[in-house]
């Protein structure tokens, strides 16, 4: 059974095989265009493969939106070291649930994408790093991998092409931080999941300090259709400089929440009203988190916008990982800010000072405000502390925690003030706020 009913407005490219029976078997995959892109790729030069990916305007689906073809091009092909393909399946961004469907309904598409990437950079080994909570997906992937080995689609001399490729799954241990590429590599190597100093980037020194292509599940899953359709045709599915389709995970106060494959640049209001069936109970839209909890929030009036990397950047938000969280007029924004900060405080790895201490402090202030013990200066303090984290942390997790807080305080300041007005601490003069309040 599928995750949600498909919408007629979808452009089914990556999800076109979703719902087919026995989708984790090679036979089913082969019967539905499976490995056709790989067959095409083995006839191409590595440069031609990378060129095709560049032409597709495919940008990293993990959240940062870095051009994938360019990333592959950074891998030093003449390096004597082994090269690795690593799939980031540590999907942990709140509001995001697309990678799990790509692995659940079409595991071999991901493997085919990895194989093509391996051809492009000269790798012989790939790892799929799957978050620990996705236990069932590890079983599905392992079954698909075993079948691919059994049918000669993995291992030595695949289908007589002379290409060798091995794939392994590896489970994460429950850390959001390990979705950050360098922390993922540390974890994959068996170490504590903390980020690495970059540069060098994984393309040059990744897994075991060897050249590594590290992309999101959806990024790799896009690759076979790019080769089948041709880069330009694939690019034309989306908006300028934002090629193809992507899986948007629409959640919150909508009638039909779900994961929908839509062209890049699809209008957000249409997404809410037409694809996701409109606002629940006919209530009014209040705000949208456009790409997972780390993205600055959009007010209702900002939501008439094309959902691609560039348009969202223009309004100081981000497309992120495609987790669209829709909130209606009943939503308490102080609670939203607190819920988000509780997540980031819990997930901060503790490596660097601003994120480690900042997230805890912000959470404590938000907890206090939400509990009705806010002080007059708290919104300003939240804003300032979040800004003190922004851009100063070791890895993007600090920014991910700071950005939503800054945007919520800026855009919904009145809701914080309402809470504080009702607080017995509201009248405490600022000079006296140094007394612990015992929350």
């Amino acid at each position, binding site marked *: 059974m599928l995750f949600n009913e498909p919408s007629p407005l979808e452009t089914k490219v990556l999800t076109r095989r979703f719902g087919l029976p026995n989708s984790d078997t090679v036979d089913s995959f082969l019967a539905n265009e499976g490995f056709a892109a790989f067959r095409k790729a083995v006839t191409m030069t590595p440069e031609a493969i990378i060129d095709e990916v560049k032409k597709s305007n495919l940008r990293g689906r993990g959240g940062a939106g870095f051009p994938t073809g360019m990333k592959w091009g950074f891998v030093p092909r003449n390096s004597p070291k082994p090269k690795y393909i690593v799939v980031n399946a540590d999907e942990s961004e709140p509001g995001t649930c697309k990678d799990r469907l790509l692995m659940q309904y079409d595991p071999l598409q991901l493997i085919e994408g990895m194989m093509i990437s391996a051809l492009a950079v000269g790798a012989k080994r790939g790892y799929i790093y799957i978050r620990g909570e996705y236990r069932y997906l590890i079983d599905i992937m392992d079954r698909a991998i075993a079948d691919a080995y059994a049918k000669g689609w993995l291992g030595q001399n695949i289908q007589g092409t002379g290409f060798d490729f091995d794939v392994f799954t590896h489970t994460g241990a429950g850390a959001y931080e390990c979705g950050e590429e360098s922390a993922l590599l540390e974890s994959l190597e068996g170490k504590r999941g903390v980020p690495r100093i970059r540069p060098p980037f994984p393309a040059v020194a990744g897994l075991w300090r060897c050249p590594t292509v590290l992309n999101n599940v959806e990024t790799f899953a896009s690759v076979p259709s790019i080769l089948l359709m041709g880069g330009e045709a694939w690019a034309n599915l989306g908006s300028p400089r934002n090629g193809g389709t992507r899986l948007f995970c629409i959640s919150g106060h909508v009638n039909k929440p779900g994961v929908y494959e839509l062209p890049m640049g699809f209008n957000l209001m249409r997404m809410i009203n037409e694809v996701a069936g409109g606002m629940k109970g006919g209530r009014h839209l209040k705000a949208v988190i456009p790409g997972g909890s780390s993205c600055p929030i959009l007010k209702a009036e900002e939501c008439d916008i094309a959902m691609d990397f560039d348009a969202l950047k223009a309004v100081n938000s981000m497309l992120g990982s495609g987790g669209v969280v829709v909130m209606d007029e009943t939503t308490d924004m102080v609670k939203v800010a607190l819920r988000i900060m509780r997540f980031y405080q819990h997930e901060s790895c503790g490596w660097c000072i601003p994120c480690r201490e900042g997230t805890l402090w912000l959470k404590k202030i938000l907890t206090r405000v939400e509990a009705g013990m806010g002080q007059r200066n708290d919104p300003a303090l939240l804003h300032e502390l979040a800004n003190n984290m922004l851009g100063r942390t070791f890895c993007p997790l600090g920014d991910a925690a700071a950005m939503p807080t800054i945007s919520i305080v800026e855009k919904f300041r009145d809701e914080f003030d309402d809470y504080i007005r009702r607080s017995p601490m509201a009248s405490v003069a600022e000079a006296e706020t*140094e007394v612990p309040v015992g929350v």
Partner: protein
Amino acid sequence: MADLVKLTIDGIPVEAAPGSLLIEVARRIGKEIPAFCYYDGFSQVAACRMCLVEIEGIPKLMTACTQPVGEGMVVRTETPKLAEARKGTLEFLLTNHPLDCPVCDKGGECELQDMVFRYGASESRYVEIKHHHDEQQWSPVVYFDPARCILCYRCVRVCSEGMGVNALGVVQRGAYAEIAPNHTDHLECDECGACIDICPVGALTSDTYRYQTRPWEMNHVGTICTHCSNGCKTTLGVRNDQIIRGNNRDRSGINGEFLCVKGRYAFDFNESEERLTTPMIRKGGKLEPASWSDAVRFVAGKLKQLKEAGRQIGVVGSGRVTNEESYYLQKFARQVLGTNSIDHERSGDVVTLLDALAGRANALATVDDLYRAKAVLVIGSDLAHQHPLLHWQIRANWRHHAAHTYSVTAGPVREDQHTVAAIRAAEGAEMNALEQLRDKLSAESELAIVFGDSVKGEAVRQLVSFGDSLGIPVKYVCLVDYVNSRGAMDMGIIPELLPGYQSAAAAGLPVGLTLPQMLANEHLGALWVVNADPLRNTRLAAKEAFVIVQDLFLTATAQQADVLLPSASLYEKLGTVTNVCGEVQRLTKAAQTMGAKADLEIIGLIAKELGMASQMGPWITDKVFAEMQQVVAGYNVPLPVIATGGAAQTLPPAVKIGVETDPALIRSARDTQFTSGTLGSYSKKLDSLLESPGSLYQGENVLALATQ
């Protein structure tokens, strides 16, 4: 060398080698960029975010500790924006910090205090409850207060990278992340205390120092550690003549920040209540306290009487006293007492090595050479346990310069973590095993060889010819036991040789007794023991012999003394000592024990009583050293070097020594990290570590097992 990179830091044009880090280059021109986690020599972590700088053309603030210099880079290290960022980071740091500076050991020398003083806010905006975790004791010396920890990971790095012990790690995450010991609630490690010293705040504290004093109440005396032969500089914190702390935070001396457990914590023997503080004379079979003048008069009278009676007098020196004292002692024995029966417990075959290397320049390795040599070969010693500084140097050489390390040892050693080849060979069989390495060693561009007491006599000559046959420059280190074991050899505290390795026989001196011969000689008239314990396992054959003992403690030998003269420790003396690599370093007097006298003064007083003061010369260390410079080959070292705390290496003699010594007399005490002969047994701290269950590093202890 690639061309230098030109850049500007705070408007000052600078040139730097490509790849240099901004923080280092800035430091060179006097711009101290604040940092907690950065520590040169260890891996970069970039965790504290204090060293942010502005670089023109880059919108983000960059960490100077990871940013290499770039051509034309324009860097600013002090701007309002940076001050604001640092203030913000410090505010975060202090949120869960206990701010217990008034009782914190680190107060006054705390890097966090200094930073907050420089950049911090004047008032706190944090009104929430602080996250707290109680203090833990991890070992007899190491305490950890998680609340004070700022997670800079210096301790983790010095332990894993510097020491190769890996006893510290991080548990939990986020604001609850914490440094943790390797055995859940306690440490099993070298107990070297490097983690404590390197901690920028008061999170890691030592049992010996905690809550003892404020740092500004101490005098900080840089002197040489009195335990093993490596000759580390240790800075003693002294208050009211009491040594309270040993560390080397100024990273001076041949050891930089390195010290082992003995250098940091085993100074407590100095304040032991068992220290001898008054001379004793045996009366009616019992040792009775006496005045210094009575004791000296008694000794002088006895020596004069025995000498006139033509009785054999034996003198036992030690590797625990200064060069000046050893020199003065042998001069007194040979010129005043007219005896050549002078010896000490020999621990390494320095004589044969120097004989084999006679006339060669650059054939002896310094401690620094072990850090710089392209390849190092360790034979017959577990350096991490027996010569910890040499292990540290070799490991740092591997870490920083990718030096090749080879080991030929009886059991596993810590160098195995990074050796190119590790060969197991029983003691005495090392030379045969060495042949297996010939091809690999010949391919090196240079080599430093460190060998223990199992290589002695003919084996040393074989080793040198093996080195010669490799066709590459080879330097040697002959391992010896104690702080001045090497100096005792150099000063001729053996019957075969005069100071500077001059043949005693050639100088017309009679054949003297060696130490075992003295102990076994039934006709010995007197035995004079200076800071040694030769009778710990044996009895003196000459039951009637008059026994004079100078020592700090009532050792087994001291218990048999007829006259016992309390001597000062090396921390209470002036003078020089010579380390395992033949490097001369000067001591500084740190403390004083009422009643004890420096051995030099004791010998001088006896000489004076005998009316030989003018022949012996003044018992002032500088005067004796000046004489040594003239008389002792190799000791004409530049005074400014040692006077400024440096180490000056002595060279092998210019011509063959031409004297064979009996290899059977050479036997190392095989002290471990937690033992140090007599001194170690009077250190309560070392005893507590030895007795503490599971506190010993259990990894590779085959050679470390004491064979005393």
